[in-house]
């Protein structure tokens, strides 16, 4: 397990490593022969597999964002520490009331067709998303926008109807494209962005070949000639990584020990983590789980250390919160006070007895994906004497079954997100895809999260979020077991590349634009 101290140390080392890397990029070392050592080399094709690409229209994505960033950029970017940084905007200001956002656009940015980026183009993109996009995070964010203005070519102003704290983070996924992109009025078929690589040739579910954009605005980036994304659903991407067919590929937990021992492959992690939790059926809880004390007792069966060790080995982080130590929204006191940090079966049985529940007479319906860790959860619950009917279903089967709310417990997990709100929103009454969290519908929780979202003071906003999280914990709607990193293997010949906060392989100051292939 990684303690919070170790995480901080790791973060510090990572930051130091990044600084060293950055200095090596900007200040190449010259050896005695006058040759540069470790200087970026131009050329080559980087072959990688991250997430899929469902659409050629970057405005219509509903998730799975791991490709678009290379050909389309946005006004803001998520930094490796999760904060928001300017990107196509060189700066931005937020009014004190949190209602007006003024973006100053970077000078000299051109689209892939040679047109210069203007505030009018940005406005057209925001309007297109607001008017045409029906689903996804952006559609929800655009609901708060009142007006867009472009007073001059480099100034773009957004006015909101009410303060909306996640706005800057969420528009990091609002890709700015040329309105001349083919299909602009319907579905964009050939996005013309400003990224370091062109959209190139896309074969759905097979590949995307993205050649370098020679007119990229950031210095002499990119170093590579092209990127080649493998979009196929490979049975085991690590095989292609080990054979050298891919330079960068995801590594599953069971393959991690093998990849970790490979001399020519480095392990990298996304800076944000996936969180793992047990959700109870909150939409229509069935006896005896409609009793919060019974849910508490079952939670005492959860051995977080063992559970996270099973999921992530020594990379697992045990906590009771939806973010990890070091995150702004993490609360150390809550973490230290976790009464479920370890399993306590005796106490669980005592609580069940006090509530008059004989576990041998109760059959719990557990629904999960076909993930091995779900079976561990089932065994832990069985330790209390419950009979368990476990439905381990494929993704859509689980989704359908969970949406019927005829179950009791769901051991689940969820991946990195651009803003903490995107985790809290899952437990709101009208939240997106709430089934993994048991379909919570609670007015007080909704109001508390809404207050956090509307709060312009970061400290107060954090407190609102923590208040909401305490509601989650007190009601045992969802119990967090811990976090695990999303792991990728990166072959040694890849230099200058580091993953950021989420899956995006290109972000302000890092990613594939800064990568090169060692000769």
């Amino acid at each position, binding site marked *: 397990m990684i303690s919070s101290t170790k995480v901080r140390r790791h973060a510090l080392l990572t930051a130091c490593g990044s600084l060293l890397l950055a200095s090596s990029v900007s200040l190449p070392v010259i050896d005695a022969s006058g040759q540069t050592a470790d200087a970026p080399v131009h050329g080559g094709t980087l072959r990688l597999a991250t997430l899929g690409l469902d659409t050629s229209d970057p405005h219509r994505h*509903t*998730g799975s964002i791991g490709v678009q960033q290379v050909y389309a950029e946005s006004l803001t970017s998520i930094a490796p520490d999760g904060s928001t940084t300017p990107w196509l905007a060189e700066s931005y200001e937020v009014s004190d009331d949190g209602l007006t956002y003024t973006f100053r656009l970077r000078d000299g940015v051109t689209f892939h067709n040679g047109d210069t980026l203007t505030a009018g183009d940005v406005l057209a993109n925001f309007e297109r998303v607001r008017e045409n996009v029906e689903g*996804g995070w952006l559609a929800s964010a655009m609901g708060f926008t009142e007006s867009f203005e472009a007073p001059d070519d480099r100034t773009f102003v957004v006015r909101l109807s009410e303060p909306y704290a996640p706005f800057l983070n969420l528009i990091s996924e609002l890709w700015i494209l040329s309105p001349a992109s083919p299909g602009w009025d319907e579905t964009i078929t050939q996005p013309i962005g400003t990224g370091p690589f062109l959209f190139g040739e896309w*074969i759905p579910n097979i590949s995307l070949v993205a050649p370098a954009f020679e007119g990229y605005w950031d210095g002499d980036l990119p170093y590579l000639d092209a990127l080649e994304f493998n979009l196929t659903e490979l049975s085991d991407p690590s095989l292609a990584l080990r054979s*050298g067919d891919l330079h960068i590929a995801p590594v599953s937990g069971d393959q991690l020990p093998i990849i970790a021992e490979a001399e020519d492959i480095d392990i990298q992690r996304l800076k944000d983590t996936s969180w793992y939790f047990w959700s109870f059926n909150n939409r229509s809880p069935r006896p005896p789980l409609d009793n919060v004390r019974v849910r508490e007792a079952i939670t005492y069966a959860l051995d977080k250390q063992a559970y996270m060790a099973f999921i992530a080995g020594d990379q697992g982080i045990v906590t009771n919160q939806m973010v990890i130590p070091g995150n702004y929204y993490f609360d150390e006191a809550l973490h230290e006070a976790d009464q479920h940090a370890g399993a306590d079966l005796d106490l669980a049985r005592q609580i069940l007895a006090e509530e008059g529940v004989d576990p041998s007479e109760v059959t719990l319906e557990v629904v999960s994906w076909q993930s091995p860790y779900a079976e561990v959860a089932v065994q832990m619950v069985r330790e209390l004497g419950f009979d368990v009917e476990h439905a381990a279903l494929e993704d859509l089967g689980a989704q359908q079954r969970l949406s019927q709310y005829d179950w009791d417990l769901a051991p689940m997990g969820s991946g990195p997100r651009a803003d903490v709100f995107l985790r809290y929103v899952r437990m709101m009454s*009208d*939240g*997106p895809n709430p089934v993994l969290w048991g379909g919570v519908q609670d007015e007080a929780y909704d109001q508390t999260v809404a207050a956090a979202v509307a709060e312009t003071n970061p400290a107060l906003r954090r407190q609102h979020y923590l208040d909401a999280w305490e509601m989650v914990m007190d009601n045992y709607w969802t119990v967090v077991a811990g976090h695990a990193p999303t792991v990728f293997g990166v072959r040694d010949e890849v230099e200058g590349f580091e993953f950021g906060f989420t899956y995006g392989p290109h972000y302000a100051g890092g990613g594939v634009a800064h990568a090169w292939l060692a000769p």
Partner: protein
Amino acid sequence: MVTLLATVLIHIARAALLVFGVTVLVFILVRAIPGDAVDVLAIEGGLTDSQAEAMRAGLGLTASWLDQFTAWCLSALRGELGESLRFHVPVADLLLQAIPVTLALGAASLATGFVLAVAIALIATLRPRSIVASLVDILNIWSIAIPTFCAGLVAILVFSLWLGWLPVLGNFLVPVIILGLDAAGQIVKPLHEEMKELGTAVYIRTARAKGLHPLKIVIGHILPAAAPVLLAMTGLVAASFIGGALTMEVLFGLPGVGSLAFNAVNGRDYPLIQAVVLFLAVAVILINALTDLAQRLVDPRPER
């Protein structure tokens, strides 16, 4: 002539009915399994219930099954296979990208299997006590007992990871060899048995008695007589390769029809599933028709 025309018309009508039946069955089955394309998007991202419903309506998924089926049939009859629900690109484009890969993989594997099976059966008939004769059973057991997926994994471990000779992704040679061995195993046993049986026929004994060279007997008399069995088995294997190379495609990242169908089902991409199944049904019917035709050419007795 009239009889032949009637036979052809009956065959075409039967084929059309079969294609229609398969289409109806698949239409119902894919909608009976849980989830649709919007659910797939919802899992990946964040659709609220109202957003999901709006998207479902926009994609035409809220219409009755009968309306959806009628609309699809009318489009298909016009030669339009629709647009992928997931990728928003024409289904025909996706299919046309995948078909050449599958045809190349299938044809190369079948040719490998055919040549190997015929060669081994010939040698085994010529030299029944040679080591080659034992290959008949070894190949046959191989094709029954070794799943192509396992053979593929072992090949990746040995040739790609340990020896570093071949790539994993886009590797065409290894899948062709594995599928070829599988095909050879299926063809060689019945072919060899038939050739052994024919070797005891009176006219073969006469040929031997006349001093004809054994190779000439096998190639000139036994093999042609065994052609119906060879054709029947080859036709069966060919039909199975049209959609059955899925494991090889997935393992080696080959973008063929099998992996297209696999991904379409995973993504609940109904128009794509329908189109793939339509292609598979027509392809299998065509292969069977060609096999029938070839059978009639080499052995016209059933017509008499």
